[in-house]
């Protein structure tokens, strides 16, 4: 019984810390409508700052704490809101999530850069002091944690209900435009709420760090705890958030106290918050469709089939030539790039065309790899089945979220990735703890692809086939529906499209494509282990996809190469390994509002060169027959779309609708343009 009491108290203490973090998340989200997925990461970074102040520089604890909570944290929050997350409230989730994921990755990179891995520890507050209660000792730190959570709760209540700025904050939740009309300053409100929110993340981090240790990744996942607690209050109700946090703290504590210490159930304790998140999500009511946010995205132009086939051939030829003279180690790198490129294709479908975000694509790669190994069918059927298994798992992840909006889907994928990473992949029936499994390379129609160079070429072939398939789909009715659904879910609904199932299907296909990549990857490496499919990989994957262009097949190819290069560069320059993350994150933040990415800049360059030199070259080439069949539709579509784009730009240029957010040059295809007639 006394142990039960001990677990209860411990649970309440963790719950109190979660409550502090969760109220910060609720505050920022409800006033700015930007879900800061970097909330936990900021808590992590600021705990390191606290360590630096109090331990490394030897400041008095109270001074260090005050500096972190009242100067550094609010400063960072203010800066992020003003310069990074500004105007994201009305942006689609695929933009706002990318930006906050970039903040997360930048935060992690910064922490690793400034405080390289070494053993550090933070003492609890009032170390050594404890009180006896019901025959059980409770430390002063634990009492302080609970007391502070109450202070935060009461403080936020007073701030929101008894002060002018608090009233403005609540008004800002309902209608920032109206607040502006009535003389309020929604921008100041937004910056203030981010400042307070970040400070609360810091407080939660500092309170937790003496128990869970100064670790880059452990505190990063605090956002899942905070989110799980916060959605119980639908991301706006603070008292319910508090209840949710306490419940989560207790469940986590009891789980760690009473679950067996061996087998699969042992690892459940690591994923309790993620499981809690899923449970709460399933209980959420149907979300209403939002109207009044119509924005067309000027996508990267679809290539004509002639061009697409030409580039495909060139790519395959290039890989063949490149592979013939390469060392085994470099071949493995090319193969890895091909794997990533195929995964990025799955994101072109999901994010680029569909406007949804998955934070678990690397996990689906792992599912595909695992399925391929376990099926033990080293042939095309095995690869296909592995893809189907991943698709099935993808559908299972999307199903609980079927009634909710894109943000919930994305966060559910994060929870799923954590569950797979910490529990399933490491289980004995999967890769095993620190274990790995052997995989055989596939044979195609009894022809065994043995040499690495041939295998890499086969992977490139997979990329090309899937890429062309994607282009054909995009040009057809299904592709139009995808884009329509991204542009206006409400209109699609009133036209009779059941988007819930459509979205589950889209998500499953995307997961399946990642699964195929995983199967090929398993064959490439020969051995695969759980460590290769950790949840964090999906973050860098998403950012690089956006940087290189998540709307085009070319972007996927370039992004694959980029993602492959990242660890190589980090290994070559270990002293600035963290900075690479920061650079990628900054790139993603700059490019997030234009998902066409660097690939599109290349296309524009190509158009420019074509305009200047194209005719001179074309005069010397004989006319080629036009490919027909289903690609014919693609060609027609590509031309129509180019016309439409050109026309749109011309109109925008002449009318001068451009506004501040974009410049549409004669070749310009970037920027998001508001509907001309939004009232």
């Amino acid at each position, binding site marked *: 019984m006394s142990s039960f009491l001990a677990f209860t108290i411990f649970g309440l203490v963790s719950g109190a810390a979660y409550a502090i973090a969760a109220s910060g998340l609720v505050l920022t989200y409800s006033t700015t409508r930007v879900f800061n997925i970097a909330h936990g990461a900021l808590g992590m970074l600021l705990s390191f700052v606290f360590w630096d102040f109090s331990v490394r520089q030897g400041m008095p604890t109270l001074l260090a704490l005050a500096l972190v909570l009242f100067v550094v944290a609010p400063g960072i929050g203010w800066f992020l809101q003003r310069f990074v997350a500004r105007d994201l409230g009305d942006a689609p989730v695929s933009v706002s999530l990318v930006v906050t994921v970039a903040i997360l990755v930048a935060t992690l990179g910064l922490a690793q850069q400034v405080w390289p891995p070494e053993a550090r520890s933070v003492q609890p507050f009032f170390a050594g002091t404890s009180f006896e209660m019901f025959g059980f000792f409770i430390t002063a730190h634990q009492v302080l944690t609970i007391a502070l959570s109450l202070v935060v709760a009461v403080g936020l209540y007073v701030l929101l209900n008894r002060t002018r700025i608090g009233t403005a904050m609540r008004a800002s939740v309902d209608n920032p435009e109206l607040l502006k009309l009535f003389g309020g300053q929604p921008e100041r409100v937004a910056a203030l709420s981010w400042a307070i929110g970040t400070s609360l993340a810091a407080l939660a981090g500092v309170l937790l760090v003496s128990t869970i240790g100064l670790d880059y990744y452990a505190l990063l996942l605090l956002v899942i705890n905070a989110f799980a607690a916060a959605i119980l209050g639908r991301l706006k109700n603070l008292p319910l958030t508090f209840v949710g946090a306490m419940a989560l703290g207790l469940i986590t504590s009891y789980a760690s106290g009473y679950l067996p210490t061996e087998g699969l159930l042992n690892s459940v304790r690591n994923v309790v918050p993620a499981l809690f998140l899923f449970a709460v999500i399933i209980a959420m009511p149907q979300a209403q469709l939002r109207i*009044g946010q119509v924005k067309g995205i000027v996508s990267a132009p679809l290539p004509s089939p002639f061009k697409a086939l030409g580039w495909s051939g060139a790519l395959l030829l290039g890989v063949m030539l490149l592979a013939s003279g390469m060392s085994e180690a470099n071949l493995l790198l090319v193969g890895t790039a091909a794997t990533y490129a195929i995964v990025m294709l799955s994101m072109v479908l999901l994010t680029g065309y569909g406007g949804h975000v998955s934070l678990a694509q690397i996990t689906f790669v792992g599912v595909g790899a695992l399925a391929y190994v376990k099926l033990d069918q080293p042939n095309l059927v095995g690869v296909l089945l592995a893809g189907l298994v991943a698709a099935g798992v993808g559908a299972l992840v999307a199903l609980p979220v079927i009634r909710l909006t894109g943000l919930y889907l994305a966060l559910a994928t994060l929870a799923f990735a954590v569950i797979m990473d910490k529990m399933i992949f490491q289980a004995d029936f999967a890769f095993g703890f620190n274990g790995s499994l052997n995989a055989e390379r596939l044979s195609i129609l009894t022809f065994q692809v043995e040499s690495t160079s041939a295998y890499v070429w086969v992977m490139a072939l997979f990329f090309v086939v899937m890429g062309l398939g994607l282009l054909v789909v995009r040009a057809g009715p299904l592709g139009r529906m995808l884009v329509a659904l991204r542009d206006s879910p409400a209109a699609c609904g009133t036209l009779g499209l059941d988007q819930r199932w459509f979205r589950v299907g889209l998500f499953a296909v995307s997961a399946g494509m990642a699964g195929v990549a995983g199967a090929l990857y398993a064959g490439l490496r020969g051995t695969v282990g759980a460590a290769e499919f950790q949840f964090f990989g999906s973050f860098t994957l998403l950012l690089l996809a956006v940087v290189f262009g998540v709307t085009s097949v070319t972007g996927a190819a370039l992004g694959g190469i980029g993602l492959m290069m990242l660890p190589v560069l980090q290994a070559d320059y270990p002293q600035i390994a963290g900075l690479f993350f920061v650079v990628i994150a900054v790139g993603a933040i700059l490019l997030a509002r234009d998902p066409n990415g660097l690939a599109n800049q290349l296309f524009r360059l190509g158009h420019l060169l074509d305009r200047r030199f194209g005719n001179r070259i074309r005069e010397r080439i004989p006319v080629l027959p036009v490919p027909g069949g289903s690609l014919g539709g693609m060609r027609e579509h590509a031309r129509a779309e180019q016309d439409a784009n050109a*026309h749109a730009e011309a109109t925008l240029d002449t009318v001068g609708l451009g506004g501040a957010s974009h410049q549409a040059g004669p070749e310009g295809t970037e920027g998001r*343009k508001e509907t001309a007639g939004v009232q």
Partner: protein
Amino acid sequence: MSSSPVPSGGGHRADVRGGPLLEVDHVVVQFGGVTAVNEACFTADPGTVTGLIGPNGAGKTTCFNVISGLQKPTRGKVRFQGKDVTSMPVHRRSKRGMGRTFQRLEAFGSLSVRDNVRVAADIHRGALAGLLPGGGHGKNIDALLERVGIAAYAQERADSIPTGTARLLELARCLAGDPKLLLLDEPSSGLDETETDAFGELLRDLAAEGRAILMVEHDMDLVMAVCDTIHVLDFGSIIASGDPAEIRRDPAVQKAYLGYSDEDGDADGHTRTDLPVVTDDTLVIPAVREGAEA
């Protein structure tokens, strides 16, 4: 609140075809403490055009959202073809024959005008139709664009066309699904006078095909010209219902719109009984409700 909120039982042709197509039955919508729609009751009948008018913020678009399924009513029922559809999802209502356009445009901005309508036709054929190669309905789409008068814009991106055109595009997109009930939310704003006249004719044609049209509209000339029945909403309640002539004469309507009614006309020293409520310049609904002058 002089006239009864309960409509007269609908139109002329409805009785012939047996019951109203759409029946809004004591619908209440509350946002927090604000009542956006208060006990609204009205019907829409096949072959007729029904107008829903009222100052901004009167709850017209909220009514549309309830009917089309984008907003759950706090209380009350929506019946379509005699069936209670109050808790039916949006897309299933559409499949049963409801189509709507939006006040704040919801065109698919990244697609061309033609593709906007094409998507609608594809969706209408069923989600699986998306897997089959398109084609076969290309002519119908061009005919549809021609019919609403935007064929000239077919190849342009939907986010680059003028507002009025985009509204017509939304109508064309709706018609691709051949709906029995059309909910049009301020369809004529952004159209010039000639275009509005043509649009009025189009509405009459669509009604003559047996469709029921329910329209929120601020252009009183258009409303008076094409509607068979008009319901006037003010602060979420229906304050008057009737045919255009009745609405023109209704004192409650004049009061809500102009801040005075026939009765107090003499008290002001003016004779306002013969005041033309509907002319080009007098009855323009104020964009923001002016203070309570009565």
